[in-house]
């Protein structure tokens, strides 16, 4: 009776004994002939997938050597954990989306293949068109290791109905004046909370474990978690401590929504939130049930500072089909397809950074909004701080910084952050 389970367990024990003592295994060798490409992505949006599939189908029609191209969503809340877990066991995708903060980690550990030659050799690819500010993060020694397909500035979403109901001024009119600052926004937010009970300012992507999603705010304080070479912790610098103290004070008076775990943040689209810091794509969830505005980020003590959220696509060096994958990437991101992708992902090509391309991407935004909050911002914008040891350092920072979110002493917490982060950064 127990025949089948027994046979299975014998197989299992043999296989486990055989492999588990070896340590790591090599990925399955390439079968010659049929090439099946896989791109690991984090979007599960059906519209995105439909567009990707359409581009892939066009490519397959002209390329007999490639049998199929699959876009695989890794929906793990922690994309990097999901991706690296897969790669760890040799289940390697041929191409993968990489978040900006992990860029140096992937590039310096040799996980990604060099794209430069294929891109320059591909006819009509026009490497010159790529914005240097966008590709900087994805280069090493002058070579390009991933294509920054999404180059999306953060902006301030404003619920005009709430402001009006609370008797507050139209914030849109302040843009460009000296009054358009985070302090002004915070004052209005606090007044809104006090008068209507709505939530003031929300940073939807921020939670204690995703602490660096406060970059759009602290950038205009001139603050950063570590130096540009990612070698020294700068949490204890006055820029950062000033910002954190400001943030604490705003949370305490209700201007900024209380710090929550990831799934608890109030949602701007419900119409109960006055201000939200988010990217272009968040406009997709908005309709005309309430009046809203899309504005550039306000100024902090160090003036205005645009901030971009970036994502790159790289070819995994361990892939069995590096050449085919690189060739497909050159097609996927050429000028024509970048324009299609621009519907969802603001492009990093100079030729596409114009109102008409972006209007197609976000039809709910006016030309003025696109010009002032996107096109004017992109050239001088910065990205989140990245590090070759990002995966290791981020959880250390997160745990040491946590006391700040519940009102703890900023000086003590930031000192603790640098105490644990510096040894890892300095390695």
């Amino acid at each position, binding site marked *: 009776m127990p025949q089948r389970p027994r046979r299975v*367990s014998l197989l*299992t024990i043999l296989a486990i004994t055989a492999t588990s003592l070896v*340590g790591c295994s090599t990925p399955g060798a390439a079968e010659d002939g049929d090439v099946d490409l896989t791109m690991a992505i984090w979007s599960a949006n059906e519209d995105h997938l439909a567009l990707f599939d359409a581009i892939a189908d066009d490519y397959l029609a002209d390329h007999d050597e490639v049998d199929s191209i699959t876009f695989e969503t890794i929906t793990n809340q922690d994309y990097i954990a999901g991706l690296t877990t897969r790669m*760890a066991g040799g289940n390697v995708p041929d191409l993968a989306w990489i978040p900006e903060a992990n860029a140096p980690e992937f590039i310096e*550990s040799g996980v990604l293949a060099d794209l430069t030659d294929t891109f320059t050799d591909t006819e009509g690819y026009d490497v010159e068109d790529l914005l240097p500010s966008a590709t900087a993060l994805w280069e090493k020694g002058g070579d390009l290791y991933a294509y920054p397909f999404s180059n999306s500035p953060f902006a301030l979403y404003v619920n005009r109905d709430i402001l009006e109901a609370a008797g507050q001024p139209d914030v849109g009119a302040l843009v460009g004046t000296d009054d358009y600052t985070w302090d002004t926004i915070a004052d209005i937010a606090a007044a809104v909370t006090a008068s209507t009970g709505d939530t003031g300012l929300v940073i939807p992507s921020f939670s204690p474990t995703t602490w660096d999603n406060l970059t759009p705010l602290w950038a205009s304080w001139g603050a950063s978690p570590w130096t540009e070479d990612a070698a020294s912790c700068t949490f204890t610098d006055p820029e950062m401590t000033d910002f954190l103290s400001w943030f604490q004070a705003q949370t305490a008076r209700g201007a900024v929504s209380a710090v929550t775990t990831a799934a608890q943040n109030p949602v701007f689209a419900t119409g109960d939130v006055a201000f939200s810091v988010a990217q272009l794509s968040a406009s997709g969830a908005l309709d005309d049930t309430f009046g809203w505005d899309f504005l550039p980020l306000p100024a902090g003590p160090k003036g205005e500072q645009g901030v971009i959220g970036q994502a790159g696509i790289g070819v995994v060096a*361990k892939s069995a089909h590096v050449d085919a994958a690189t060739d497909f990437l050159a097609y996927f991101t050429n000028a024509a397809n970048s324009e299609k992708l621009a519907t969802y992902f603001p492009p990093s090509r100079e030729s596409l950074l114009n109102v008409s391309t972006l209007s197609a991407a976000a039809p709910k935004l006016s030309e003025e909004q696109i010009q002032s909050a996107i096109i004017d911002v992109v050239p001088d914008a910065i990205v989140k701080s990245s590090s070759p040891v990002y995966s290791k350092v981020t959880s250390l920072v997160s745990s*040491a910084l946590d006391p700040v979110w519940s009102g703890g002493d900023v000086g003590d917490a930031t000192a603790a952050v640098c105490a644990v982060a510096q040894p890892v950064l300095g390695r």
Partner: protein
Amino acid sequence: MSSAVRTRAATRPIRRHLDRGDRWIRLAFVAPQVIGVLALGVVPFVAVIWYSLNEWTPLTGSFDFVGIDNYTRLFGDQRFFNSLRSSFLFGVGIVVLNLVLALCLALLLNNRLRGISTFRAFFFSPVVVSIIAWSIVWNFLLAPEGGVNGTLAMFGIDGTGWLTDPATALGSVVVIQVFKGVGMNMVLFLAALQGVPGEIKEAARLDGAGPVRLFFAVTLPMISPTVLLAGILTTIGSLEVFAPIQLLTKGGPADTTLVLPYFLYQTAFQQQEFGYASAIGVVLFIIILGLTMAQWMSRKKWVNDEN
């Protein structure tokens, strides 16, 4: 109760003449289970010990023997001590709260009242609700603007961000976990309570024992074997908790809920250090083994009727 029957059967020598058959058939009875446990428990654990002596970064594929370096690093790692502390508080909190609450509920339910089985079903119902759904719901209820704070506000109490405040996060997760699982032990205790012979209690009452005395002098000792087993299983369970931590706090705030299994997961799958994570795994096993042994050894001191 048939415990008498069972005891007799257990102590009866196994009948030889029934064992005359092929010994391979007899081994075949246990083979699937034993082979399964060897393949999925013992062999992997031996592999974990080996891994823990290596530095292994799966992303790049580097795998180097480093001896006990991972262990020396572990004992110099502040986060490891944070994690030990969290696991300890978490385990103690769960075991104490769970057992005490389970006993109280079992005593409450051990009354002949109309509709008592409805309450029994209420207390037991979270056991059949998945821990995932349970955690998702509590995540909303414990949010700064959530139901718990809203209710407290009606009484003029200013609630906190229960899951983001280092002072309350661990306690909150413990309470969530206890409400989820206490029904299991409650039912075991209830069955044990109902197995306590009425005559013994009667005799104690005639000797002038009040209800409190009666409980501590008669009832508790009578059900102590159940309490011991429930205690051991709850201890092991509390040290393996993963899902509510991942869904509610991700080990934060300030590592206060960074229990060892979550620290292991973070180290292995987020930070890509399989060797170091394996060392954490070995330590976790030693802790569980030690605690279980300690509880088992202590049984002679307080467990009644051990055979």
